[in-house]
């Protein structure tokens, strides 16, 4: 239930922010992009409400992934550490240059160098492509691995005794945890 709530917040929060910006009339052309206009929305507003929270989330994602890698290594979970770092590395790849570009544009009076503009324009839209390619890579492995895990855990549970009050919880946690890990990081 709480996990569902996390996903709901992930959608509702940007929706609320976007609605507030709309009601305040802060949209317009900003160089290459059509979103918060520098004419209507102050640099501070864009920095504090948009860029800094995203930067914070990126850092948090990286720290979380490192924590997962730590758990994986210390407990010999058998997951690939490189794979575990795949998603945060992708986020870094997509967001680093655009963040530098935006920060540069907001804090410096000098024009952002063209290579940085070009890289930003190329990298930012590739989030979907990046995730889709990743999904395609894990797709072939997912069915087999998940099925094997379900079978393996089910047999372990059977060995533990009929009607174990906590057996189903173990199955659920392990299958769900490992399935979502395989989907995104294996």
């Amino acid at each position: 239930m709480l996990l569902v709530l996390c996903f709901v917040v992930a959608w509702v929060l940007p929706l609320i922010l976007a609605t507030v910006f709309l009601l305040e009339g802060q949209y317009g052309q900003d160089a290459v992009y059509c979103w918060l206009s520098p004419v209507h929305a102050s640099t501070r507003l864009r920095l504090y409400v948009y860029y800094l929270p995203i930067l914070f989330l990126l850092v948090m994602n990286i720290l979380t992934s490192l924590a997962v890698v730590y758990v994986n290594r210390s407990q010999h979970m058998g997951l690939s550490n490189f794979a575990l770092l795949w998603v945060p590395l992708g986020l870094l790849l997509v967001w680093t240059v655009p963040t530098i570009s935006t920060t540069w544009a907001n804090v410096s009076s000098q024009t952002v160098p063209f290579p940085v503009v070009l890289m930003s324009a190329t990298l930012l839209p590739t989030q979907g492509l990046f995730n889709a390619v990743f999904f395609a890579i894990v797709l072939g492995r997912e069915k087999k691995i998940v099925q094997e895990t379900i079978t393996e855990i089910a047999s372990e549970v059977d060995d533990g005794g009929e009607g174990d009050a906590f057996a189903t919880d173990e199955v659920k946690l392990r299958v769900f945890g490992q399935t979502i890990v395989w989907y995104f990081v294996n």
Partner: protein
Amino acid sequence: MQLFRPPVGMLTAEQIVAVEWAMGWSSGLSVVASFLVIAYVATKLFLQRFRRRPSVTVTGHPSSGSEDYLTTDFMIGTRKQTTGAAQDAEVWLLLWFSELSVLCLMVADLGSALWYFLQLHVLGVGCSDALAFFGTVFEPTSVLVVTAISLSMLVLLRGSLKLQTRSAMKKTVREHDYPLFSLALFFF
């Protein structure tokens, strides 16, 4: 033809063409790729709903959806006896939920990529409040969804580890790592 309109003097005509070309290809490919994944997962979920879902009732609780199962099983310390078929149903629901997570992420990515694609005015739309609103909603959502997923991974891996022994299992069922979830919500 100059498709987007940067401030005068910011970019040369050649540079504008290069940016348009780069953004057009990357966003176009993202739109197609995201859409294909969404179509695949949505079709799979649709077919599973009719073909694989076992009709099971967990003691006293009708199987009315993933929320009921997750709420009942993860949040209440005392567990009920379940049949093998009920276990299958619960495992199936968790797999279904993880596929929904994929769907959620790819929809955010599709919206974001579409927004970038529309920046180029290829559909004849100029900068409008609707387009800006669209982008402001979808652009950060992808990052937020990834955050939710990575936190889930950490919580679930920790939960999985804690279920190594029976005593630890009982403890986990009681506590459920709620502080981590609370922390996640605080960050959002």
